[in-house]
């Protein structure tokens, strides 16, 4: 769940492109910890907002191995966790399914059908369930890790900045320092210059 910073300015836009331009401009002017609320996914906005550079949070996430080259995922390491977890779960599920069949048919309760091989000798017959159990565990992991990472839970009382943020409005959130009025004014000027049709002060 994208949590709103305690003190921030929220600029509302009617157009995804305006939001992108505003975000890029805010970033280039040095504003940090930006966030945005959009009714649909906008490709590339994570990079523009600089989410990849964030290492703050309760549990600092170590860098992901094997992705430290440009173009594949250097920028968005933090947001590549779900595929990695899913791959791990796929392997564990498949291995577990295979071992279950091997053990039950080879050791716990061998069934002799016409003298055909038992245990590991009958491995081709185990492939289907191996595959299915791998997919099942990977799918469940993907589903639950989504909620673990986003900290979403069945919450009917969630507060939204504007009901139209899930409809046709876009919001750019710039955290501000209440002590530093210049910073706040700069942020407000930026939002207005970039075409925000409403600016909301949250504090």
């Amino acid at each position, binding site marked *: *769940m*994208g949590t709103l910073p305690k003190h921030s300015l929220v600029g509302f836009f*009617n*157009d995804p*492109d*305006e939001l992108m*331009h505003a975000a*890029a401009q805010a970033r*280039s002017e040095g504003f940090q910890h930006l*966030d*945005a*609320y*959009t*009714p*649909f996914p*906008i*490709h*590339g*906005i994570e*990079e523009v907002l600089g989410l990849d550079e964030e290492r703050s949070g309760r549990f600092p996430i170590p860098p992901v191995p094997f992705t430290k080259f440009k173009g594949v995922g250097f920028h968005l390491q933090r*947001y590549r966790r*779900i595929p990695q977890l*899913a791959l791990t779960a*796929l392997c564990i599920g498949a291995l577990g399914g295979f071992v*279950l069949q091997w053990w*039950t*048919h080879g050791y716990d*309760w061998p*069934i002799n059908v016409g003298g055909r091989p038992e245990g590991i000798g009958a491995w081709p*017959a185990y492939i*289907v*369930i191996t*595959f*299915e159990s791998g*997919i*099942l565990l*990977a*799918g469940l992991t*993907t*589903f639950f*890790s*989504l909620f673990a990472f986003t900290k*979403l839970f*069945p*919450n009917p009382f*969630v507060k939204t900045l504007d*009901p139209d*943020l*899930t*409809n*046709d409005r876009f919001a750019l959130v710039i955290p501000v320092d209440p002590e530093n009025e210049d910073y706040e004014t700069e942020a407000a*000027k930026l939002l207005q*210059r970039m*075409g925000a*049709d*409403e*600016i*909301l*002060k949250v*504090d």
Partner: protein
Amino acid sequence: MSIIEREPTTTEVVTTRGEGLTSHPPGEGQHGHGGMTPDGTAPLVDPKYSMNDITRDVLKPMFTWPPLGWHIAFGAAQTALLIGAIVVAIQIKQGLGILGINNPVGWGVYITDFVFWVGIGHAGTLISAILFLFRQKWRTAINRSAEAMTIFAVQCAGLFPLLHVGRTWKAFWLIPYPNERLLWVNFRSPLLWDVFAVTTYVTISALFWYMGMIPDIATARDKAPSKIQKFAYGILSMGWTGSVRDWAHYERAYAQFAWLATPLVLSVHSVVSFDFAVSMIPGWHTTIFPPYFVAGAIFSGFGMVITLLVPMRRLLRLEHIITINHLDLCNKVILLTSMLVGYAYISELFVALFYAGAPYEEAQFVYRLMGEHAWAFWLMMFCNVMLPQVFWFKKIRRHLGIMFVISLFINVGMWFERFNIFILSLEHDYLPANWAYFRPTLFDFGTTLGSFGLFFTLFLLFCRVLPTIAIAELKTVLHKPAGDKPRERDFQVLAWPAKNGHANGHATKEAH
């Protein structure tokens, strides 16, 4: 609100990724390249509809009393479900003997229904997962309803093996768990593979469907007119706010599900076909079965998609979102898969009659062509191979009435395809002394009717309470909203002092 002073450098920063909505410089054109159909002629949604229009039109059926047509359809579906429930209750009490199954034909209408319903499900996953991976953007208008169709169809399918085991209350013995009977299931049996394949399929499809729906349920929560609806959709939407951080994880999870569902959907009907291909009955024991079944499944599934969407888009007034172009593309898939199954039928016949030299196989296919049940074979040939050929003509592909009727024929034809494969093969196996004629009873028909009742009941309820279109996804393929046109809104707040220093109308809106 059009005072936008953009620095020239800004555009460069924004367009580094070179994809999506930001790929064209501002003010270039009204349509993003994502808004084109595959042939690049028309936008997927008419440019005159804004994001707000899409939201309003999709959510309207959820917040208004449904039209008369919905009530009639729901009443009919409930009646069929009630009949099915009564029939199933009698069947569970009396046992399988009241069905048409006899000594050689141990797998009768129940298994036919099972494979029919599993097959229906495949189109939904094809649309939601495989077309997603191929970046077919036209899928966005129909993927939600097709996925719903998948889940309901697989639920119907799952009923039949559970009933067909006879002692339904012991069906849980199919689950491998350490038990007091000290027995394990036979993991080497294709019937058990089926248990795993179908349960995995229904689980993954349901999770994929629900996950894809969360942002749209959040839209429904924010627009719901009553407090009860707000509360219910609030729980279902998992507190979704649309933060970019959430979208980043969500997008990856969605793509992940597509990658998992794609091999899964191809495997499920392959595994179903192993039930037959792995056994030794003439007419079943062929290597062509897995791809043949998968093609047939997609064919029948798209038939059902047309059967559902043509009335649905009319009843829910979604003609401008599920356009005739979408139905046209579905009909093209039907045409393709019709030829694939036609090829399978013909090659199966050719191999059996002229190539393999297996006498029992040959006798089986002569029986299919000219035996007592030959009408079922020719009905299948007519509905699945000959009739869909009319979709070569563009006018017919785009004619609602004709495509609806043809889709009904496809449903019938695909049901009889399974009837042919399963029942005709069992009627004439090896020993002539064993041969018998299969005659379904009213209980067979009643259960089949009941499964249709269940399917349509669930689908109609879905139309009533959940967003039938993937709203958020559809907005990504929408035309770019006109930047210089002021948006119609009942309030306009210009909150901050303008550049020249004095306040521009209103004060800052304070939120605490």
